[in-house]
């Protein structure tokens, strides 16, 4: 094939082509540096769109079984001392990845719960003045979900009432996104919320019911 791929790069990246058409483009791109760059740009554009989606977590049970399968040593395959050494080496990174996985699972679970609630309940959305953040809340004030974009430092959500502040918790960063979230599944009605970072109020939202 001598023709350059041109607009087909976008169709390729969007998944609009049949497998044989993709093979044709792959074959051409393998020997054409200009077209492979074009393809890479289209793939980056599609990925940018995909990254705006929430990350769907694999079933927890499945992850657990896979982790167990990875961690399980082959019985009697090695002498005991070698086995023990291998286990120590294997478990150190596993412990780290377990923590990472666990944090990711918690974040994903929170996001999933919040989205289910939003889909099922009438709600309102109010922006936090002075920041790229918003609160989505039930019309009856029984639940709240605070979404903050571009969080650089730990940030807590406060309920402002009667001249005092009540700490509702810290926003949790979402995996693979420049976004953090705090979901409060059961609450009473709150009229004013604030975002606090390093002890300073950085943004406030006035809720209406």
């Amino acid at each position, binding site marked *: 094939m001598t023709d350059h791929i*041109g*607009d*087909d*790069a*976008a*169709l*390729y*990246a*969007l*998944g*609009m*082509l*049949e*497998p044989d058409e*993709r093979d044709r483009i*792959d074959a051409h*791109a*393998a020997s054409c*540096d200009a077209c*492979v*760059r074009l*393809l*890479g*740009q*289209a*793939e*980056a*554009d*599609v*990925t*940018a*769109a*995909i*990254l*705006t*989606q*929430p*990350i*769907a*977590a*694999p*079933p927890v049970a*499945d992850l657990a079984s896979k982790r167990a399968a990875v961690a399980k040593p082959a019985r009697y395959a090695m002498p005991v001392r070698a086995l023990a050494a291998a286990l120590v080496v294997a478990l150190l990174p596993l412990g780290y*990845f377990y923590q990472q996985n666990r944090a*990711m699972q918690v974040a994903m679970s929170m996001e999933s719960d*919040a*989205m*289910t609630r*939003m*889909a099922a309940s009438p*709600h309102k*959305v109010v922006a936090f003045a002075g920041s790229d953040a918003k609160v*989505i809340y039930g019309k009856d004030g029984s639940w709240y*979900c605070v*979404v903050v974009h571009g969080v650089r430092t730990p940030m807590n959500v406060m309920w402002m009432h009667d001249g005092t502040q009540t700490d509702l918790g810290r926003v949790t960063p979402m*995996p*693979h*996104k420049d*976004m953090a*979230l705090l979901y409060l599944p059961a609450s009473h009605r709150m009229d004013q919320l604030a975002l606090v970072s390093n002890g300073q109020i950085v943004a406030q939202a006035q809720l209406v019911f």
Partner: protein
Amino acid sequence: MQAGSDEALAAAFAAKEKWAFDEAYRRYGALLYSTAYHVLGNAEDAQDCVQDALSRVWRSPGAYSRSRGEVRSFLVVCVRNEAITRLRSKSRRQKLTERVAAEPTQNVEFEYTDVIEHDRLRAAMRKLPEEQRKPLELAYYQQKTHTEIAAELQEPLGTIKSRIALGLRKLGSALGAP
């Protein structure tokens, strides 16, 4: 080049070093699974899809080169293409066996996203001229082929292709793609 950096990973991935493949899976596994799940709407299918797509990449000589850009984008598109192929194949089988029009797979999570992060995508889409937005939405959200879109919008195939290409570049740029 710093070990563990994206550049180091890309170089090792292009050279088909085994550790790079493992590292890419470790870094992007959740994103790849999620990409497949959003198309297929089924956990088991999504896991099979990721595994098949990655196996194909590993078996294909020269599938990835540094000029292509990020390993992440390359893998995301590989997995999404595999998922869409499966979806179309499933839909065709349903049409044959059940003799009814196959329902597009409903992706409930996808619909929920309007409220939070996905509104960024919707907002970026809305800024596109209608002639670019319409075909792009049909391609991205409904996984339609260019032929189907051209028929639906009653426009020449070449026109649809160029509008989609232009719209996608603008969309990527608005969403911060490099």
